[in-house]
C-alpha cells in the first residue's frame, strides 16, 4: 500500500495535467509548435536572413575582412561581370537541358511501365525505377566518372565506331545530372499515365483518332502537369549542384562552383551569388504553379 500511494498521486497529477491540456487547445498548439518553430525560424530562417543581408556587405580586398556597410556593389558585379553572366547563363542552360533530356527519356519508360507492361509486373517495375534513388548520390556520380574516364566503358563501347567517349566536361555534366534526377521525372509521369482513364482513350479511338492523334490531343495535355511537377526536381536539383561538376565537369564552372570558391575570401560575394539559384528557382516555381502542377506534388 505504501508503495502504491505515490504512484496514484502521480497518476492523478498526470490526469490533471491531461485535463488541463484538453481544456486549452491553444496551449496544446503552442506546446506542439514552439520547439519546431524555434528550430526552423530562429536557427534556419535566421541564418538565411543573415546570409542574404550579408550579400549587401562588402569585403576589404586587402584583409578579406567583411565590411558591414550597406551597398549593392555585389549585385552590380553580378550583372556586369562577364564571367558571372556567362556562368549564370550556362547553369540555367544546363538545368534546362537536363530537364528536357529527363522528360525525353522518362516518357517512353513511363509509358511502358504504366500502360504497356503486363499489369502483374507493374509494381515490380516501379520498384525498379525507385531503387536507384536509394543508391548514394556520390556513388552514382562516381559510376559516371568510371564510365567516362579515359579507356573506360564509354570509350570501349564507342571504339568499334571509331569514336571515343565525351570525356570530362560540360556534356559529361549534363549526362550525369540527367542520370541522377531521371527517376524524379519517370515517377510522376508514370502515375499520371496510370491514372489516365481508359474510356478517354477508347472515346478518342471511337471518334476516329489514330494512336498519334490520341497521344497529342488526349495523353499529352493530361500528362503535362506531371512533367512540370517532375521538372521542379530536375531543374532545381541541377541548378544547385556543384559536386557533380567537380567530379565529371573537367574545368566547367557552374554557379555552385563560384559560390564555393568565394566562401573563404569573399563571403558577401558568395552570398550574392547564392541568391541567384534561389531567385531562379522561385521564379520557376511561380511559373510552374500556373500550370497547377504543384498540387500534384
Amino acid at each position, binding site marked *: 500500500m505504501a508503495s502504491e500511494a505515490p504512484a496514484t498521486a502521480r497518476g492523478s497529477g498526470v*490526469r490533471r495535467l*491531461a*485535463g488541463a491540456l*484538453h481544456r486549452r487547445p491553444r496551449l*496544446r*498548439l503552442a506546446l*506542439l*509548435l514552439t*520547439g*519546431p*518553430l524555434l*528550430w*526552423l*525560424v530562429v*536557427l*534556419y*530562417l535566421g*541564418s*538565411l536572413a*543573415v*546570409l542574404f543581408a550579408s550579400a549587401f556587405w562588402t569585403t576589404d580586398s586587402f584583409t578579406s575582412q567583411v565590411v558591414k556597410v550597406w551597398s549593392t556593389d555585389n549585385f552590380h558585379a553580378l550583372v556586369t561581370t562577364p564571367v558571372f553572366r556567362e556562368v549564370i547563363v550556362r547553369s540555367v542552360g544546363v538545368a534546362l537541358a537536363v530537364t528536357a533530356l529527363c522528360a525525353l527519356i*522518362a516518357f517512353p*519508360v513511363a*509509358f*511502358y511501365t504504366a500502360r504497356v507492361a503486363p499489369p502483374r509486373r507493374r*509494381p515490380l517495375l*516501379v*520498384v*525498379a*525505377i525507385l*531503387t*536507384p*534513388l*536509394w543508391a*548514394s*548520390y*556520390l*556513388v552514382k556520380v*562516381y*559510376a*559516371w*566518372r*568510371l564510365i567516362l*574516364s579515359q*579507356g*573506360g566503358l564509354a570509350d*570501349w563501347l564507342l571504339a568499334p565506331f571509331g569514336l571515343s567517349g565525351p570525356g570530362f566536361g560540360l556534356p559529361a555534366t549534363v549526362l550525369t545530372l540527367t*542520370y541522377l534526377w531521371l*527517376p524524379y521525372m519517370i515517377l510522376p509521369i508514370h502515375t499520371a499515365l496510370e491514372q489516365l482513364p481508359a474510356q478517354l482513350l477508347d472515346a*478518342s*479511338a471511337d471518334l476516329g483518332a489514330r*494512336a498519334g492523334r490520341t497521344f497529342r490531343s488526349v495523353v499529352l495535355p493530361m500528362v503535362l502537369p506531371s512533367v512540370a511537377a517532375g521538372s521542379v526536381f530536375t531543374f532545381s536539383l541541377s541548378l*544547385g549542384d556543384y*559536386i557533380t561538376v567537380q*567530379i565529371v565537369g573537367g574545368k566547367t564552372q557552374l554557379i555552385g562552383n563560384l559560390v564555393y570558391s568565394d566562401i573563404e575570401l569573399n*563571403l558577401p560575394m*558568395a552570398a550574392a551569388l*547564392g541568391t541567384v*539559384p534561389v531567385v531562379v*528557382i522561385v521564379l520557376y516555381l511561380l511559373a510552374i504553379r500556373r500550370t497547377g502542377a504543384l498540387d500534384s506534388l
Partner: protein
Amino acid sequence: MHLGRSARIALRIGAGLGFAVIYVPLLLVLANSLNPDRSASWPPPGLTGRWWSAAVHDSGARHALWTSVKAGLGATAVALVLGTLIAFAVARYRFFGRDTVSFVVVLPIALPGIVTGIALNSAFSTVLQPLGVGLGLFTVIVGHATFCIVVVFNNVVARLRRTTGSYEEAAMDLGASTFRAFVDVTFPLVRSALLAGALLSFALSFDEIVVTTFTAGPGIETLPIWIFGNMTRPRQAPVVNVVAAVLVLLSVVPIYLAQRLSADTATSSRV
C-alpha cells in the same frame, strides 16, 4: 489507345534501353570493385577479391562509416520529434499561418544545399564560436536534422489526414486521458508512418555531402566526404571502388524495408 504492333515493340525497346541506362552504371560499380587493375579501364583484365579485404581493414573508411551512422541516427532522432510535432499541429489544428509553416518545413530541402550550407556555417561560426563551441559532429547533426524534418513531416501528416480525430475522441469518451489516448490510439495509427519517415530521414542524412561539407568540424568525416576526398587519389581508388559497391548493395535494404512497411511508402518519392 490501340497501339500498333510496331509501336509496342518500339516502346518496349525504348523502356529496355531506359532501364539499361539506369542500371548499367550501378552494375559497373559492382564489377569494378573486383577489378585487379588500379585504373578504371574497361574491360578489367581479371577478377580479384583483394580490394574487398583491403577495404575491410581500411581504418579511414570504417571510421567515416561510423561517423555517418552517428550523424544519421542523431539527425533522425531530432527530425522525428520536430517533424511529428509540426505534423500534429498542421493536421489537427487550424491556426493563422498554417500554410506558411508547411512551406517553411519544405524550404531546407527545396533550396540548393550550398545555400543552406553556407547560411548555417556562418551562423554557427558567429554564434557558437564566441561560446567556445567549434564545428563538430553536433553541428552536422543540427544541419542534417534541418532538412530531414520535412520527410518525417510529410509521412506523418499524410497519415493523420487519412485518419480523422474521431478515434481519439471515442477513446476519450470512454474515459482515456489525452496521454492515454495518444499512447493507445494515435501512436499505433502513425507508427508505420514514423518508421517510414525515420527510414527516409536516415537515408537522406547518410547520403548528404553539401551541407555536411559546411557544418563538419575538422576531423569529422562522414562516408560521402571520405569518398569525395579519396576519389581522385589513385592509390585509394580500389578501396573507394569497394565502398561504392557496398553502398550500391546496401541500397536494396531500404527498398525492401519500405515494401514491408506499406505499399504507399514505396511509391512516394524520397522528397
